[in-house]
């Protein structure tokens, strides 16, 4: 079917008086890799959190895989989504956080097994084999029995990715997954994401400050500014000759820093 994997339709998000996202419209196609860049406070994280239903939206509709996420269709009219509906649609989305949020009291393997067993109801052995496959894939075959505290930041983040994949999502969200890492650990995580993009049918939406990676990896880059998409397009266009001065300004600031 032709409708996009994710669609934001006039989505507005406010915190009290502060309007964080203003009438956002954004479509993401199946298997498209989209990077979101922009200054701090521009609403990047909020976009992902709304999609992950970690934040309620004040206005508009979010569509996932052709059906409304935050609402449900009751004979023609859209009504607020029930918990059941939310949980069904949410199942199609996975998220990786800036600060990993691994479960500290579980080993890498248990982290990846818990949800498949207690949410999807997989039998333990099946969940286990799936989990260890994924851990092998992210290059942590030898760390399965380790607890998060025994792992480096880069390793933790790779476990987090495996944990999200274990739920077989169609869309993966990444929020600055490398900015809590020591520079020389960033590479190993980006490699995992790179391969993920290459080998799996996954729609990916990532907030990042790694201009280099965004450029090389993504099909499209969206530059957020003050809760709006100030500019978007293929990376080469956006990085080489951006239309808006805001974009140019931001890029020069960031590159000077790098």
């Amino acid at each position: 079917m032709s409708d996009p994997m994710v669609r934001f339709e006039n989505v507005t998000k406010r915190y009290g008086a502060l309007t964080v996202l203003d009438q956002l419209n954004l479509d993401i196609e199946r298997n498209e890799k989209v990077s979101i860049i922009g200054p701090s406070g521009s609403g990047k994280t909020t976009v992902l959190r709304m999609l992950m239903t970690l934040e309620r939206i004040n206005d508009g509709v979010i569509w996932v895989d052709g059906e409304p996420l935050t609402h449900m269709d009751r004979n023609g009219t859209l009504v607020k989504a029930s918990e059941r509906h939310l949980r069904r649609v949410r199942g199609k989305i996975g998220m990786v956080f800036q600060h990993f949020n691994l479960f500290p009291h579980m080993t890498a393997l248990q982290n990846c097994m818990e949800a498949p067993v207690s949410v999807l109801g997989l039998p333990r052995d099946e969940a286990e084999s799936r989990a260890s496959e994924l851990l092998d894939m992210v290059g942590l075959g030898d760390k399965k029995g380790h607890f998060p505290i025994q792992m480096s930041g880069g390793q933790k983040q790779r476990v987090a990715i495996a944990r999200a994949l274990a739920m077989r999502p169609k869309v993966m969200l990444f929020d600055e997954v490398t900015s809590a890492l020591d520079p020389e650990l960033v590479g190993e995580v980006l490699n995992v994401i790179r391969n993920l993009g290459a080998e799996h049918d996954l729609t990916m939406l990532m907030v990042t400050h790694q201009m280099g990676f965004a450029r090389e990896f993504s099909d499209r880059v969206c530059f957020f500014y003050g809760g709006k998409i100030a500019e978007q397009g293929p990376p080469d266009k956006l990085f080489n000759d951006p239309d808006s001065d805001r974009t140019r300004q931001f890029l020069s600031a960031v590159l000077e820093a790098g």
Partner: protein
Amino acid sequence: MGIGFMNEFALGFSVAALFKGAAVTLFVTTGASIVAIVLGLAVGLVRVSTLAPLRWLAVAYIEFFRGTSMLVQLYWWFFVLPIFGLSLSPWTVAIVGVGMNVSGYGAELVRAAIQSVDRGQYEASTALNFPRLTMMRRIIVPQAIRGMLPPWGNLLIELLKGTSLIFFITITELTTASKLAADATGNYLLFFAVALFGYYLIARAIITPLVRWLERRFSRGFIREAVA
């Protein structure tokens, strides 16, 4: 005559009586601790439930039992309640009365511990689509328990001390026993010192180690040594 003849033997007898008192204190402490822990956990979990009315009930419970002093509560249980037709035995009042009073504080500990679990843990659980109860059971509570163990240790010591009030409801526990012994012999230094040390011993040789042991058991994944 009278207590005249008592005196010579008083010392020997009183020491025996002191041990009985210690035993009583230990017994009531154990019983009341169980009551406090069970009710504390239950009320504490209700306190963080998503249903507002339930929450309010928990708040009322907590505020009531923390609002008035244990002594007043014991008086009420023991001397006033019967007049409304419910007469509980001194032992029941001691264990339930002390236990419920402490459970009010315990519930607060549970609440605090649960709410102090990193928000990221809730968000990760949502992202992985956990139903709320599963999330609580598998992710939040196991982490909260570790956080609330040390304060529970202190609370149980409070409870231990609280049992010294059950004298007012006709039970002769360690404090009273030492008082009676001291009155009979006139040797206040000896018997009060022994009693003080007795409590200290129970707290430091039983309660504290027990809690430490539990802490170690629940520390998997939080401290390097604990998992090495």
